[in-house]
């Protein structure tokens, strides 16, 4: 697909009422900002009380995420499970066209981190409507991953695409083993020193949670007008575990950072068979005191 044809595709989306979020310039990079906002806004109204009655407020607007890298596509698989029974997330999902993007050709897409490594068949394990490989300028190779994706290209009269069958989110072998390893280490041995040391360094700013494509904690809040919201929250907030009467169950920075890791590598693994981490390194880059998840995981592995 040439740049010209891409412009046509974008116009096609816009004509159909989609808001197009264009990330094509980020090919080959993991952007600083994760994509979770598009499904799970930082503050989302979930309903309102009007004259003492419940009124639903689902966001059914249509959007296109044009150019999502493979690492963030992987993170969507966690969200799909966590929010499988969530009408608000599902309403966003139903109205979102996901277009993946890589700067490498299909068979050369590679990514390696402490938790996630992609092999040759990566696209078969990711969920998307369209996927673009852009190894050279002015030339996108097109793949479809859903009926919606096929329909779009057919409507546009674009025929030069290949369909990729989604065969489920989980890779066999290496990936799962790395995650299982970390889980078992965390479950069976609580090495206090790791968390005490981190507790001394961490300043509880929560930046790691905002940039994390897998952090999905929230709290439910009401305003004085009768609107109810679901808002991002994070386990570094002191009131995170606070119940009425000012009693807290999590007291120290060390406990908070332990909670963060335990959630990602134990609770998420137990429940969703995948860790709450795709190894994107955003948290390490965002941390103002230089806590590096690679080093923490190494310490856990060696514990």
């Amino acid at each position, binding site marked *: 697909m040439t740049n010209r044809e891409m412009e046509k595709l974008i116009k096609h989306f816009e004509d159909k009422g989609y808001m197009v979020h264009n990330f094509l310039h980020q090919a080959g990079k993991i952007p600083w900002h994760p994509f979770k906002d598009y499904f799970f806004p930082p503050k989302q109204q979930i309903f309102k009380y009007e004259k003492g009655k*419940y009124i639903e407020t689902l966001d059914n607007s249509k959007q296109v995420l044009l150019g999502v890298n493979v690492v963030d596509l992987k993170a969507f698989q966690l969200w799909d499970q966590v*929010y499988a*029974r969530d009408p608000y997330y599902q309403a966003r999902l139903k109205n979102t066209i996901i277009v993946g993007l890589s700067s490498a050709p299909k068979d050369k897409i590679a990514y390696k981190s402490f938790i996630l490594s992609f092999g040759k068949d990566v696209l078969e394990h990711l969920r998307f409507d369209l996927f673009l490989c852009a190894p050279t300028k002015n030339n996108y190779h097109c793949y479809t991953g859903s009926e919606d994706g096929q329909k779009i290209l057919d409507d546009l009269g674009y025929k030069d695409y290949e369909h990729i069958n989604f065969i489920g989110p989980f890779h066999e072998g290496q990936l799962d083993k790395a995650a299982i390893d970390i889980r078992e280490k965390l479950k069976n041995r609580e090495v206090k020193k790791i968390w005490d040391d981190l507790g001394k360094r961490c300043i509880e700013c929560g930046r790691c949670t905002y940039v994390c494509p897998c952090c999905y904690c929230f709290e*439910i809040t009401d305003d004085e007008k009768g609107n109810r919201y679901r808002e991002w929250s994070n386990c570094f907030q002191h009131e995170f575990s606070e*119940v009425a*009467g000012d009693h807290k169950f999590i007291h120290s920075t060390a406990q908070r950072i332990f909670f963060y890791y*335990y*959630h990602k590598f*134990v609770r998420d693994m137990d429940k969703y068979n995948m860790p709450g981490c795709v190894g994107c390194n955003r948290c390490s880059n965002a941390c103002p005191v230089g806590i590096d998840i690679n080093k923490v995981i190494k310490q856990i592995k060696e514990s």
Partner: protein
Amino acid sequence: MKNEYQPKEAIIKKAMKETDDINTYWISFLNKKDQEDFWFEPGQFVQVGVPKLGEAPISISSSPHIESHFEITVREAGRVTKALAKMKKGDKVFIRGPFGKGWPKPQLDDHLVLVAGGIGLPAVKPLLDDFCHGYLQVKSLQTFYGTTHFDKLVCMRYFDLWRKETEVHITLDNQDPRWKADVGLITELIKKAKIYKDSKVFIIGPPVMYKFVIAEFLKKGVPEKNIFMSLERKMSCGVGVCQHCACGDKYTCKDGPVFRYDRVKDIPDII
């Protein structure tokens, strides 16, 4: 798709004062079908919502066999519960739930022991009610209830019935001329009592209570797997997603609030 966040409209049918800061409410759903469909297990909780303020997780304190309404007993502690305290008959609240796993269903050959501290008593009250009205059959039922002062006693209007039908020990931490029964910590009561070694023990109370009470039962020879405790945490979503009530690998709102002691005792800071 069923929306777990959508509350149902309900009406306060009756509001009763328990203490200076604790009230009991009879609540029934506005929609008849919602009321008919409402089934819960003793030990489960609901989210009680007040528009513009939020929600508070509260244990259900009535028997599931009552069809016309359910009951909650609430201490004024936060924004929502303070607003509830001002409410009266006919006022509207919004209910989500029931959520969580309640007490395990007692069996015919169980020796059941209920231990409640402070505002924990209402969460085991459904079992006492069911026992007294013939819905719950067990080999024996013992109840231990302790609170700080005479003026903090809850469910007092049932004491006579409970004492008549079962073995109930009630103690106050502080003496009071109006109080003729035991004075002292709840652990002292348990120490003195005869407890069957194969008892099933259900515990609920303030966070500080669990360790000491459990230690007493273990000393009496009750196995860890027979001890169940209902834990308090910040339950927000109620469906095991938001993480506020997480503890180790468990979600208090979904895997709990009732946990079997041996299954969670190794989780740091769980009690």
